[in-house]
């Protein structure tokens, strides 16, 4: 199993550009999550999904959108990139809410 994979690994965006961060898991997990990690701040939940077609906002959803058309994929969309979105983004999945498996992360810089 590849586990949780994320693409791209790195990205530099200009202010106002848009992009999609891809996340795929091959463990048949129902639950998937997007977090952002800022220095000294721990991880903040952006969006989560409890199954295909079902998504909900986390702690810091503003400026982001998600969709979940399949069990495997949970892309995160940034529509109008802002410098405040410079961060490291982690996707995670779990069979239940107990133990989450994390991807390697995407480092995003918005200039």
């Amino acid at each position, binding site marked *: 199993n590849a586990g949780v994979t994320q693409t791209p690994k790195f990205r530099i965006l200009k202010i106002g550009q848009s992009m999609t961060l891809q996340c795929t898991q091959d463990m048949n997990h129902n639950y998937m999550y997007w977090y952002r990690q800022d220095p000294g701040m*721990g*991880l*903040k939940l952006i969006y*989560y999904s409890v199954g295909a077609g079902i998504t909900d906002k*986390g702690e810091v959803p503003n400026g982001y959108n998600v969709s979940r058309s399949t069990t495997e994929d949970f892309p995160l969309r940034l529509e109008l990139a802002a410098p405040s979105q410079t961060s490291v983004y*982690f996707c995670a999945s779990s069979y239940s809410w107990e133990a989450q*498996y994390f991807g390697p*992360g995407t480092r995003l810089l918005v200039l």
Partner: protein
Amino acid sequence: AQSVTQLDSQVPVFEEAPVELRCNYSSSVSVYLFWYVQYPNQGLQLLLKYLSGSTLVKGINGFEAEFNKSQTSFHLRKPSVHISDTAEYFCAVSDSGTGGYNKLIFGAGTRLAVHP
């Protein structure tokens, strides 16, 4: 809502010495607690979890943690650390929130630096 406080942002320690990383959480009727480790430029990996039962929980890589309900703490310990334990460690607590769905609330992290 739940919250997690990791009391030390950085912990330097010599190799083969014991270490304790401290974590306190806000009280709740029932609580589930986790420790994750993040090695440089990697994602988070589950070290151990407390769901119920014995308050002493053993995890991977020789780490253990003790759940203390009266002190609302879940400190992580290892009796003898290795250079390879250098990483950032995150304590997390479940939060039932709305709709009964449990999601994790993470602490700010503790950077463990093991020196030879």
